[in-house]
């Protein structure tokens, strides 16, 4: 079977044309607009129960083994939920104010997230440090590999490879 030669000036197939830069620019535009709309429009009013859930997930149950007030079924957690619900019902406090109130009244045992100050800041700083090290390490490694790849093989290297390939072919 013979294949007809395609003239160099022939138009590109539709699939190819779509995949050109205009198609990508259009795609990027749609993504940016969609993300802008999605991230700026209102989520609608939260119910008191939704707010209670959100706040309860940020408070540790003071008597439990690692559970938040949201997860725990213990009486202590139930008590805190009742108090938070009553503060939400008053409608005058923000979420952060309610959490601060709980921590004042129930102690630091209710703190579920380490502070970003003092010794506790380490738990926030180390992941960032690890990320920076990783990016730096990868950059150095790729640069080193690129330098190694740019090395031009000598005639001796080429002979060595040819011999090895010949040897392998003979072996088969």
């Amino acid at each position, binding site marked *: 079977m013979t294949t007809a030669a395609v003239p160099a000036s022939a138009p590109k197939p539709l699939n190819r044309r779509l995949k050109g830069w205009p198609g990508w620019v259009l795609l990027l535009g749609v993504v940016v607009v969609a*993300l802008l709309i999605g*991230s700026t429009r209102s989520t609608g009013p939260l119910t008191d*129960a939704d707010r209670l*859930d959100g706040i309860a997930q940020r408070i540790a149950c003071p008597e439990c083994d690692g559970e938040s007030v949201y997860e725990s079924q213990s009486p202590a957690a139930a008590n805190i939920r009742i108090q938070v619900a009553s503060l939400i019902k008053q409608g005058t406090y923000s979420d952060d104010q309610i959490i601060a109130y709980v921590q004042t009244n129930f102690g630091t045992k209710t703190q*579920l*997230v*380490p502070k970003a100050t003092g010794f506790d800041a380490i738990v926030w700083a180390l992941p960032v440090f*690890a990320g920076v090290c990783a990016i730096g390490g990868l950059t150095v490694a790729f640069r080193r*590999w690129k330098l190694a790849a740019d090395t031009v093989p000598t005639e001796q290297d080429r002979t060595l490879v040819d011999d090895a390939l010949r040897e392998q072919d003979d072996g088969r």
Partner: protein
Amino acid sequence: MLAATVNGTLGHSVLLIGLVCATFGALATVYGIRTGDGRLLRSTQRYAFGVAGAGIAAFAVMERALIQRDFSLKYVQQVGSADTPFIFNITAIWSALEGSILLWLVILVGYTAVIARRFRKRLDDPLVAWALVVMFVVCIFFFVLTLGPADAFKAGPLGVTSGLGPNPLLQNHILVLFHPPILYLGYVGMTVPFAFAIAALITGRVGERWLTETRRFALFAWGFLTIGIILGGWWSYEVLGWSGVWGWDPVENASLLPWLTGTAYIHSVLVQERRGMLRVWNLTLLVSTFALTILGTFLTRSGVIKSVHAFSNGSIGPYLLGFFGVIAVVSLGLIAWRGDRLRSPGAIDSPMSREGAFLANNVLFTIFAFVVLLGTVFPLIVEALQNRTIKVGSPYFESLSVPFGLILLFLMAVAPVLPWRKASAELLRERLFWPAWGGVIALVVPLAFGATGFAALLAFGLGGFAAGAASRQLILATRRQGLRGLIGRANGGMVVHIGVIIVAVALVASTTYTHSSTLAMQVGQVKRYGGHTFELVEVQGFTTARSNGVRVQIKVDGGQAYAPAITTFTNFGSNIPTPSVRNGVLNDIYLTLDPGSKPGDTTASIKVFIKPLIIWLWIGGGLMVLGTALSGFPGKRRRLPTDPTSALIPSTDRPPRDDDAPASTASDERPSEEIVSV
């Protein structure tokens, strides 16, 4: 009393026999290797079978003791009860420390026997022999634990005629039968690739051969760990009553850590097989994965960390910590010793290559594992250094996991279409175009339905992008090979990717868009919430031999009645909520009963959660399992068995296609299962 004597004595006896078999197995194998005695080495299979027989017998004896309610044993006093139903009496064996270690042991000895059987014709091969030595040594450690600090057959106080039974959370759902053993199959399975890694280091055969020996074992263990984690999420959802699947609890984190490093390994191992690179990295990942299983067990079983899942608090901690230290020192020492042989002959030419993407993926998984480990152990560090207690809860992990998740989704989109060596911009533009539009659709459709939030929408978009890339690979593979295009490591891996994407999208949707409300209702009253109606039909009491409680009947949308309950286990006195869930393709309706209701009441307070896409978590998990199984089948062979894995790929008779990208070879576009040896 006679049965009691029999169970205790028999249990200790078989454990002792197992210890002796494992010790002699290890010593005989080392002696055989040193003297080159092939006959002796071939006989080590018997020791492995002896070890397996002893471990299985010990497990069986403990089950017998639980079934017989042999309350002369301290462990049965702790977890057994005359009232516990048969099925939960069987599962009671892994409901506390000593039995969990027995479960670990029985799976470990099983793997040891499988290795001895699988490699029975090569037992005189030093690589296999050393791997068996490592398995025997790990067995010795666990036999010592079961005879010492985690002795399940220890006699208890006399005169006890019943016990409390398992923790109420462990006798409340059938998943207790499946989740722990399956998780342990994955956890303990990581011992096998670790054993071969150590054997490769000892023998100096650090090439690619040992990887191929253990490829399926690593995949098998990873697959079970995946199933175990998913079942754990399902169990949490069905039992704990807070409607979540993952709480970043230390015990959950302990299972996630080896999964993260194991996932990194099953990607980076492809680079070593293909290019002979990342040898030290792969060894380190395998050692880390195994070491993390031990560290995780230490964290969750020693009592150093409090967790709702940590059903034990024994004196096992120093043993596990010591063993962890030995693993770390020996492994790192061996890697340093073999440093000269571990130098990679090649280089990664470009970050825009498949190996470059694998490396980036590995770095991400490793840093994420570090973050999870740091968050898990940070309270211990603070307590040790500053003598104060702090908590690191889910908000910390969730805030840090978002960027990792998004970058991983992006890598999952780009990596499958990348060729080895180097990709040009034109190639990427060509191959990523339609997958990227898949991402746009996945972004715009939820937006049209009212979805909000930058991170969630970006996750949907990247998920669609990644799903498009994985689907593209599968379509290409099935076009060429028919249904065979679905099997093999690369193609099965794409099925796993689709499963992961579905899980990720479902997790994002269910955590971002869950809504809830508390409905205070009277019997006969109908209330509306979230587009559904809820009618309280009745408030009932119930009593069983081990519990009593209150249950309400709620009609949803005028149809089927659902029955959330609160159960009080009389032996413990604690209230355990039992949610009732209406599953749906788009939303689950999750109902819990608030405390305070009494049988016969005419009012009740019901909490209703509307949780989007939850069912897709289990569907995605199922796809991950299916993909893992498909990956276990051999793909198409293209190499001679004697070819080194980094050998050139023979040319094929496929004519060039119009859409073959100029910057890649034909083989780059093919699923890599065709490229790597099997």
